[in-house]
């Protein structure tokens, strides 16, 4: 090797060494961080962030400890000196330019250069790297073992795991059975693929086709399948050895079944049905009752969301238009479509702008609509009926309801109408009159509106022109607060009281009425503002709304009952209660209630018998009858709700045969029976009294009568 190449070789060595170190640190930090994942999961910390945090932490520490960034040529040379004695602590000389070296140094360089390239230079760091690699592998293995262990999984995923249709259930499988394969073909509407399972407990969608394929160890003459303890169906042998059997059935109902091998019955297995729920429709907009006032755009934005468990087929708005009045009301039905493709979507948010004028809605008409949706299975569901009405300005202005009947309403109820008429008239005439005239009349209208507002304001105790409804009691409320003379109690009291001139003016409206009045005043304020600023077109909606609210108020005050004169017929008292009664029969009825539901009583007795069985007493003859009765009731319950009652039915069968008392089995039955009995109403009872009461009774009688 050439002397000049020594330096290059050292640089090369340095790079490789650094790389090895980095790899080693990477391995170690990866291993530690991996091991941290299950711990993070255990403490419910996000595993990924935990992993990255620990990884970077260890990495940084490793880099600092190993001084990765401080590895230079000279440190590498020192490293080489340490590890190779033949270099005689002179490696550093190679780094210096040859010419600068002294004679002695040159000699030394010549001496050591012959050892280059050094053999086994990476022996030690390589070994370390391999060890760290092994550590990483070990960490991976540990992680794999922990992750696959069921116990830990349940701890970690227990809460978040949703119910899986193919949950493993512990089952007692008859010895004859070699293999089970149950094919569940969900119905088309679910859009789900066929699945296979090797357990008897079935959880299937409504209408799913279930096919049982049962292989037996030995030839069996006959296999029956019994559904809900009532329907018995024979399985077909699929081969000539009578060791393979099959049967298929469309399942629409929950229940349970069992297999029968040549008369030997198996355990009970449950069939649970996943029902297809109808589409849930939720309307976010508009409100259930919307009124479109004059001036508002006659358009309604409909926002709704539909959700179904398997898929939505179709949805549309069914709208009914009600127009006309009284006997002349006519209804038109319309079907409005959402212009969105729904096919098969499970959840969708729909938008539709209903243009009322396009539908032909006129003022005073109403639109009723609801959303109808059909899911893949053909199940229909519909939303509540929503109503949109357009306020009828013509109706408001009509005299109907005021001209007839009792007109108890004072004149000022009409002037809002007058203002509207005047406003509309002014608007019409705007082009023909001068600007000044227009402004003047507009201002006058505003003044009228103000006066009207103030009149209504009075009802609410509104005193100043600036507030609405006159709430609160300002310090400066218009009363004269004269200097209070010392000792003048009345004056002192007046300071804190809110006295009015005329007591009759104080109104006692119901809060609801007050609130409505206040709303009217609000609208009047709005109208006045626009009138005074000559924006007549803008003022109209406020005027109309004020009038509509006033009309509503007016209708409220129209509960009225007319007085009529009563002239009773004079009674002849001597003739009272003197009629002949001999032809009046005295009806007598006799009936006895027949309690047809004796099952509950049986169940109650059975509970006590099971309680006795817990303490080891065997069943007697009569008690076995009760067990039978309980079993029939449990069978019918289990056929409807296998999830709740099948386990109890199984236990009941076990308990009625078993010689050994298994308390947990009995408790399962008791719990189920308790649920079957349900909550009972309290019934009247007599109280018991101990015979020792005789003594006090005797005493009582003696006190009362003087003798016993």
């Amino acid at each position, binding site marked *: 090797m050439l002397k000049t190449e020594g330096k290059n070789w050292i640089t090369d060595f340095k790079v490789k060494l650094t790389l090895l170190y980095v790899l080693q640190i990477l391995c170690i930090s990866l291993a530690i961080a991996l091991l941290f994942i299950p711990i993070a999961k255990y403490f419910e910390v996000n595993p990924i962030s935990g992993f990255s945090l620990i990884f970077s932490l260890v990495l940084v520490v490793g880099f600092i400890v190993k001084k990765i960034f401080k590895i230079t040529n000279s440190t590498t040379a020192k490293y080489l000196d340490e590890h190779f004695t033949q270099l005689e602590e002179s490696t550093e000389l190679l780094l210096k330019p040859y010419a600068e070296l002294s004679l002695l140094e040159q000699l030394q360089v010549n001496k050591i250069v012959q050892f280059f390239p050094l053999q086994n230079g990476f022996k030690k760091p390589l070994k370390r790297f391999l060890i760290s690699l092994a550590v990483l592998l070990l960490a991976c293995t540990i992680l794999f073992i922990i992750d696959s262990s069921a116990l830990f999984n349940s701890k970690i995923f227990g809460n978040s795991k949703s119910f899986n249709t193919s949950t493993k259930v512990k089952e007692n499988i008859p010895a004859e059975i070699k293999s089970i394969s149950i094919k569940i073909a969900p119905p088309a509407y679910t859009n789900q693929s066929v699945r296979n399972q090797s357990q008897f407990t079935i959880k299937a969608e409504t209408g799913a086709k279930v096919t049982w394929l049962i292989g037996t160890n030995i030839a069996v003459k006959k296999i029956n399948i019994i559904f809900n303890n009532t329907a018995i169906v024979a399985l077909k042998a699929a081969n000539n050895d009578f060791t393979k059997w099959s049967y298929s059935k469309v399942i629409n109902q929950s229940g349970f079944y069992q297999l029968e091998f040549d008369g030997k019955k198996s355990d009970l297995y449950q069939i649970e049905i996943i029902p297809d729920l109808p589409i849930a429709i939720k309307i976010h907009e508009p409100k259930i009752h919307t009124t479109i006032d004059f001036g508002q755009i006659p358009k309604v934005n409909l926002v709704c969301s539909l959700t179904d468990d398997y898929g939505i087929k179709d949805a549309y708005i069914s709208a009914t238009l009600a127009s006309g009045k009284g006997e002349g009301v006519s209804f038109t039905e319309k079907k409005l479509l959402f212009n969105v493709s729904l096919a098969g979507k499970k959840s969708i948010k729909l938008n539709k702008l209903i243009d009322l004028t396009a539908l032909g809605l006129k003022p005073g008409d109403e639109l009723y609509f609801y959303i109808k949706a059909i899911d893949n299975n053909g199940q229909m569901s519909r939303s509540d009926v929503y109503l949109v009405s357009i306020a009828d300005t013509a109706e408001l202005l009509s005299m109907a309801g005021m001209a007839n009947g009792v007109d108890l309403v004072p004149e000022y109820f009409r002037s809002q109408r007058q203002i509207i008429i005047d406003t509309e008239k002014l608007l019409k005439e705007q082009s023909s009159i001068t600007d000044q005239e227009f402004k003047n009349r507009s201002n006058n209208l505003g003044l009228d509106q103000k006066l009207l507002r103030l009149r209504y304001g009075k009802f609410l105790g509104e005193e100043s022109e600036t507030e609405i409804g006159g709430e609160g009691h300002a310090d400066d409320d218009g009363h004269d607060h004269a200097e209070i003379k010392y000792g003048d109690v009345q004056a002192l009291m007046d300071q804190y009281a809110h006295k009015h001139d005329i007591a009759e003016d104080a109104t006692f409206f119901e809060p609801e009425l007050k609130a409505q009045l206040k709303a009217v005043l609000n609208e009047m304020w709005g109208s006045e503002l626009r009138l005074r600023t000559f924006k007549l077109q803008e003022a109209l909606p406020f005027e109309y709304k004020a009038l509509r609210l006033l009309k509503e108020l007016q209708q409220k005050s129209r509960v009225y009952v007319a007085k009529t004169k009563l002239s009773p017929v004079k009674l002849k008292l001597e003739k009272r*209660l003197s*009629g002949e*009664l001999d032809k*009046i029969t*005295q*009806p*007598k*009825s*006799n*009936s*006895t*209630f027949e*309690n047809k539901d004796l099952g509950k*009583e049986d169940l*109650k*007795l059975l*509970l*006590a*018998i099971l*309680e*006795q069985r*817990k*303490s080891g007493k065997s069943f007697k003859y009569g008690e076995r009858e009760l067990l039978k009765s309980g079993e029939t009731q449990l069978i019918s319950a289990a056929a409807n709700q296998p999830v709740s009652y099948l386990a109890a039915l199984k236990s009941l069968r076990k308990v009625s045969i078993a010689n050994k008392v298994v308390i947990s089995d*009995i*408790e*399962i*039955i*008791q*719990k189920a*029976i*308790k649920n079957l*009995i349900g*909550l*009972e*109403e*309290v*019934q*009247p*009872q*007599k*109280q*018991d*009294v*101990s*015979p*020792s*009461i*005789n*003594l006090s*009774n005797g005493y*009582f009688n003696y006190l*009362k009568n003087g003798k016993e």
Partner: protein
Amino acid sequence: MEFKLTVFIICIILALFLIFKELKRKNKTNLSWRILASIFMVVSFAFLIVPITYQTVKEQATAELNLITEGTDVDTITKIKGEKFDLDSNLFSDQKNLKIKHIEDLAYFLQENKDIKKVNIYGYGLDQTQLKQLQAYQLSFHPAAIPSGIISVSWQKEVSATENLTIQGVYNNYSNQDVKLKLFGLGANLDSAFVKSNSKINFSFNTQQKQSGNAIYQLIAFKGKDTLFAEPIPFEVKPKKPIQILILASFPDFEYKFLKNWLYEKQYQVVFRSQISKDKYSSDFLNTKAMDVSRINQALLKQMDVLLIDENEMSSISAVERAAINTAVNNGMGLIIRLTNAISNPNSPKYGRYEIPFVPATTFTITAVNENIKFSELPFPQTLFLETTLNDQALFKSSTGKTVVNGQLYGMGKVLISSLSSTYQWELAGKGTDYSMFWSILFLKAAKKELKNQSIEFFPQFLTIGSSTKLIATLSDNKAPNLAFNDIKLNPKQNMELPFKWDAVFWPTIAGWNKITINNITENAFVYQTSDWSALKNADKLNLNSSFSIHQLNQKEDLKLTTENIDEEISKWWIFAVFLLTAGYLWYEQRFLAN
């Protein structure tokens, strides 16, 4: 005495013989000394056999007996000076260093140690029978801390069908951990309570029992995941005792109609009569035979437990009929009078009614007085209320505290006045439970009580295996009953003062449900294991011992010191020394001095 005399005679003969031998001896140099030594030797020999005693008068502290019982903590034991005894050898069997001696039988021990005047009892104390033996002694009770656990509990031993089982008690939790108390029965958790660390709470569990017959529920306490204890709650559900009801209506209204149907469906015997016209009635006999109800008389009323009548009908019936009703109530029948009008009939009393002016409320809520029941609201405003006087018991009140149903004793029976007129609204609103609850309470309060022919009580109330139990049977006559416990005949003893009470003592041997028969009627009695309800038993013992010791303290003055004549004995070592000296001298004189 005989023995002493023999000893003395033999010794005198021996002394005479020795003196004679001394006199005969040739060497007479030390004769007098030798004779003296011989005499002393024989005398001391005699007193070695018969000890010398003399009498002295001495003052001394009273002898005390320290009895350690369950629950005593080790610190207390180590602080006790003097000897310590226990009655249960298993108590501190693992701690030998405490040096507790065991007493097999307390009575025997006290007989043996007559000097004991005072007994110190440590821990939870002794049971009743043991305390009885200490009646003559001065007692000092050093109670242990109240035990942790259920220290008081009660529940109905017998429940009627559809009645609720109520378990109430006190839980004392000394530990630093919270305890969860759970009522478990028929395979399900029925109710639960939470006891915070270092606290004492009153708990109350309520559950509707479902079975008819016996059942054992369990009261389980959990500390974290550990089960502290599971105590049995045995109880019996008896079939319901139906009541016979007579309803007299002035006219049929909805209230009657609903009540009639409800009682009919629940299979009660109901006779319903409503007036059609003057002396003309329509009558329904539900679940019972037809009978003549045109006249109300004693014979008819005797069959009835409750008579429900409205105010109008009450005033329209004849005075004879009213008198018959009064007599029947006097003999125990219940009478419920419905008030419907705010103003009473001219013929009928006011029954303390008053009307409040129209209320704006549209609903009305009632509560049962003294019962923890919340009723749903009735959809009408009630304006008619009753005044509760000193003789009245308010049974139902409005939520504002005004009485709507009053009860009053009349003779042995009860008269209930109700101003509620439309309880059927509950049924209409689908609140059947409220409706049945209301009428059940009303009928229970009113109905004639059923007199049992016999009843049994046990002392102590918790029958425990192997412990003596006293049974007291109360009978309706004074004849000796046939008593048997699990078919073993018991021979009862008549009570001296109350001849209808008989008692017998027995020892139950089988845990669980046992049969007890009086005059061929079998009842159930539950026998507990010795370990059941230990905290409760210990708390009871604490109370018993403290009250017993306080009672004793009041009777006996504190005797600290006593003077006594005591026979004291001279130590035999002195006599033996004399014997040795004299005998030694005799030997030495013969061996060395004589030569």
